[in-house]
């Protein structure tokens, strides 16, 4: 069973780094974007997506199989990962 994971992040946010590191260490493939590292013209659109999903301005925004988790919260990540019985 493969999990689909997407991480919205900011390059300035240490918890975003830890979240990516956690997925890497756990051997779970993910896609991600550092919103503030995009070309300026694309930043607003990516940020809006993250804001819509999360209902706020906080990063990281982690989407696991369509479920949205806001913040670096490994317990919550596990709940939603099928490979871990979530």
């Amino acid at each position: 069973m493969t999990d689909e994971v997407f991480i919205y992040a900011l390059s300035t946010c240490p918890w975003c780094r830890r979240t990516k590191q956690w997925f890497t260490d756990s051997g779970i493939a993910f896609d991600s974007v550092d919103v503030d590292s995009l070309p300026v013209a694309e930043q607003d659109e990516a940020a809006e997506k993250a804001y819509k999903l999360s209902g706020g301005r906080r990063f990281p925004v982690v989407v696991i199989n369509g479920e949205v988790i806001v913040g670096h919260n490994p317990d919550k990540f596990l709940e939603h990962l099928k490979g871990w019985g979530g």
Partner: protein
Amino acid sequence: MGSAERKESLRYLFARVVDPLGYKLTPDEELADFLLEQEVKLEQDHGAPFCPCQGRTRKRAEDMLIVCPCIPFHREHFDAMKRCWCGLFVHKDVSDPDSLPQFPPDEG
């Protein structure tokens, strides 16, 4: 002012602001250093030490609520976590900041 000096002056300014609110700088010095460095860069690029862990919208009324320290505007949420969203500031009684989870305001 050089970046290193600016970082120190933000550290000093902000410690004074958060103290009456019951917060202190995180004892995780590496984290504090990294975050303050990001804020100095954000201030240079965008005119204010915006939060490194929250996104701007270019609407002034919204963006001013995430200039560091943003604790006055997110108090209930941060009090519930015993830390600010970035973890730059923690409640005064916190000695092990890594044990504090990061969760959104509606999941207190």
